[in-house]
């Protein structure tokens, strides 16, 4: 399966928002990501795959949290090897799996802390406008929030970096269906409203297809194919073959 | 680390010694050395190495870096003085064949108790709790006069005359210590491949997984403490005989840290490291005053310890292994006279 790499990734376009080429991530002797290549020109790209396929490791490599080898280019500039804060200051914002809000900071403090390094169109007030719920809870600690509120906070924190690339790792995990719907709407409107490219790691295929323009499939640390989201949505056999999922299949 | 850049020496691999040859060298050593080198350097190295070996077992196999191994040894030393003959405290005057095993038993129980106290903790917490236990024991023997004779401690602790041999004469003491050291070494070395040893190393690497696999992590740790306690206990008996007394300074903070210095300088992945570290420590302690004229022994040993921790992955043995790898890669040949068993396990 490893052979079918997207041809475009081999010669990355300089203006692509994110171009990953032959990326390796190792933990000791174990290889979490193997020779993964990926291209995100603009818009929203979803990476789908089962647990343990290296999706989170890929995110960690892009944000600089784990060492990697290969190449990661952001609008043509190499960012692999930079420390995480430098990558963040270049406009890569991260909404991690499990939200990872700071438990001893209030909502307001989260936003003030993030709104420091890249001042663009987003301000804390703008975030409160986007998520009115957060404004009500602005003096609450990070862990006093519900899952959905934490997700809003994590997104708000990321947006305040005025990102040119937003990385989201499993944003729907543990959220109620109604909240997932709202989240999808929010992401779609964000993508439409801003120049920002979004890389979305998701196990929930329906959500991924719903939000993303195209979908990349990751198996055993390797990106095996990329296709338009609509193509995956239409092909249930492929869904089952690639993902081995039944319950979460689109249209189930 | 400059040594890795020196020109390759033809005799380099010879630095690796065959176990049999090493044992032979240790056995004929008293014929070549004077009393001072036999007792204070040789005997003390083996004795201190034995106590450091108990730390190596815990830290190297079990991942538990404790500071209380000197405390366990000290408890055994106090016990052999109290149960057997000594001056100053409430000694019971038991015969040696009863006093010695009983002293070691008490040390094992104490070690198991410390193990039970610290088994739930990990890493740095283990260091802290064992430090606290050790200092508590120090203050106990310091403050109690009726039994432990306070600051003065117990004196006239002498090994028995058995088989017509006075075991405190330098040569006899050396061979006694050597026998204990070899036994301890062999035990620890063999332990690595036993079911228990493997489980212990598994717990070191991933306690959660071992627990999920059905291993009782706490019990394994306590058992390791008990085994290490037996080794340290034997070392403690030798320590009491070597000094012919035991006092609170024997179990003080400096002494506790010294064991850690010895084990880490030598390398905690292989039982050889404990004795190597002890040899370096004892030689430096004895000759620092001649070497650097002044009294900067602590500075010297501290710097050696610091560079060991900073630059070597595993003490002198680790450095040796690094150099050997370098030599192999540069000279492109396998060193001879080395059995894989004696290299640091990594």
């Amino acid at each position: 399966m490893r052979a079918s790499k997207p041809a475009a990734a081999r010669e990355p376009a300089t203006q692509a928002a994110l171009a990953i080429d032959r990326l390796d991530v190792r933990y000791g002797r174990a290889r979490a990501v193997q020779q993964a290549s990926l291209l995100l020109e603009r818009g929203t790209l979803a990476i789908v795959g089962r647990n343990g396929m290296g999706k989170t490791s890929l995110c960690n490599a892009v944000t600089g949290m784990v060492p990697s080898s290969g190449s990661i280019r952001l609008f043509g500039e190499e960012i692999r090897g930079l420390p995480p804060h430098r990558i963040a200051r270049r406009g890569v914002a991260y909404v991690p799996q499990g939200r990872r809000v700071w438990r001893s900071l209030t909502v307001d403090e989260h936003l003030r802390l993030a709104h420091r390094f890249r001042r663009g169109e987003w301000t804390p007030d703008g975030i409160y406008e986007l998520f009115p719920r957060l404004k009500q809870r602005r003096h609450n600690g990070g862990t006093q929030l519900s899952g959905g509120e934490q997700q809003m906070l994590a997104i708000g924190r990321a947006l305040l970096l005025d990102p040119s690339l937003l990385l989201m790792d499993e944003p729907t995990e543990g959220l109620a269906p109604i909240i997932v719907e709202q989240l999808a709407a929010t992401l779609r409107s964000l993508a439409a409203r801003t120049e920002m490219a979004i890389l979305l790691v998701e196990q929930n295929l329906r959500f991924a297809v719903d939000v993303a323009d195209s979908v990349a499939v990751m198996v055993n640390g390797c990106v095996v194919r990329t296709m338009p989201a609509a193509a995956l949505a239409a092909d249930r056999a492929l869904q089952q073959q690639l993902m081995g999922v039944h319950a979460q299949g689109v249209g189930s | 680390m400059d040594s890795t850049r020196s020109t390759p020496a033809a005799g380099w691999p010879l630095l690796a010694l065959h176990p049999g040859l090493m044992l032979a060298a240790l056995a004929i050593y008293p014929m070549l050395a004077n009393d001072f080198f036999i007792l204070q350097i040789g005997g003390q190295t083996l004795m201190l190495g034995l106590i450091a070996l108990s730390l190596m077992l815990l830290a190297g196999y079990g991942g538990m870096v404790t500071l209380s191994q000197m405390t366990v040894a000290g408890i055994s030393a106090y016990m052999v003085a109290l149960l057997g003959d000594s001056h100053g405290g409430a000694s019971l005057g038991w015969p040696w064949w009863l006093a010695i095993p009983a002293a070691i038993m008490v040390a094992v129980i104490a070690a198991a108790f410390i193990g039970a106290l610290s088994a739930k903790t990990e890493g740095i917490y283990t260091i802290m709790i064992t430090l606290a236990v050790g200092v508590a024991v120090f203050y106990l023997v310091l403050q109690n006069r009726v039994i432990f004779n306070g600051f003065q401690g117990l004196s006239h602790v002498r090994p028995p005359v058995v088989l017509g041999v006075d075991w405190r004469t330098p040569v006899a003491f050396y061979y006694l210590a050597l026998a204990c050291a070899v036994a301890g070494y062999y035990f620890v070395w063999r332990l690595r491949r036993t079911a228990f040893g493997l489980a212990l190393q598994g717990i070191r690497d991933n306690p959660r997984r071992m627990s999920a696999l059905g291993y009782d992590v706490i019990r394994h740790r306590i058992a390791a403490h008990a085994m290490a306690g037996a080794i340290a206990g034997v070392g403690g008996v030798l320590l009491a005989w070597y000094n012919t007394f035991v006092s609170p300074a024997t179990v003080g903070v400096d002494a506790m840290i010294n064991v850690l210095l010895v084990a880490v300088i030598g390398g905690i992945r292989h039982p050889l490291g404990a004795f190597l570290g002890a040899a370096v420590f004892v030689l430096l302690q004895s000759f620092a005053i001649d070497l650097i004229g002044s009294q900067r022994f602590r500075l010297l040993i501290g710097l050696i310890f610091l560079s060991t921790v900073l630059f070597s992955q595993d003490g002198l043995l680790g450095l040796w292994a690094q150099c050997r790898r370098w030599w192999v890669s540069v000279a492109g040949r396998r060193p001879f006279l080395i059995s894989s068993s004696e290299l640091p396990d990594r």
Partner: protein
Amino acid sequence: MKWPRHRDRAILAATPLVVVAAWACHHDTRLFVAATLNGVTLAALYFLVASGFALIFGLMRNVNLAHGSLYLLGAYVGYTVGDQTGSWYLGVVAGALGAAVLGVVLQVSVFRFMPGQELRQALVTVAISVVLADLMMWVWGADIYQLDPPEWMYGSSVLPIVQHYPTYRLILLVLAVAVGGGLWLLLNRTRIGMMIRAGVDDRMMLAATGVNMQFVFAVTFAIGAGLAGFAGVIGGSALSISPGEDTRYLLASLIVVVVGGLGSVAGTAVGALLIGLSEQYGLAYAPTYGVLFTFLIMVATLFYRPQGIFGGR
């Protein structure tokens, strides 16, 4: 809900203590009040030293076993500067600065290269403490130094019941409260404090939000080490400065933060109070074995509540 069981246990433990305290108070009120005051003021000194230790541990998971050396270095530098300039205040500033600079140097030149290797860091700090102890002995010898605080702090104040009480010890208490308050303000009301708290919770996310963690680490180390140096000068003026004090205050800090809960400022205060009081009650009522109390408290705490009284998981 485990609370009722805890409460029962707490009451069970507290009852004999209250009875003993009541007896002690009745037996010799002056002694009891004086010992309590002594315990509280000693706790103030312990809090000053241990708060820096707790701060550094909380953010960096670095058990800085050279913390006592920073205390002693601050004391020596403070003494030397105070002696040369004749100003105690300058000595305090110099001691705090000296320790802070050393702390930053250690962080930037050593600890930066071993992130996440807690045990190795602990070993390195043991080595550093051994080396520093001997270096300081080299420079300052084994003499006993003592700083004299300004005239108005010396002497005794008149308090009810205990009559005369050393003014300086009361100042110690004020200083500890001020430092505690200052730390609270720093952590809760400043941007760097916000970063430190965020870093304690999740430092990778802080970095991913664009914060240079090495900078935050260096600042934290500077504050923590500076507090140790500050405490060194303050403690060196209350008691004396001599070799061996490094180990004493390292042990005190360790016990205080382990009992109180690693990395929590409030826990550090409680731990310091517990240890200071037990030490002084021990000295007043059970001099022979009183010195064991603190260690028994620590062992018991670690056994029943390894995360400390205030420690969360």
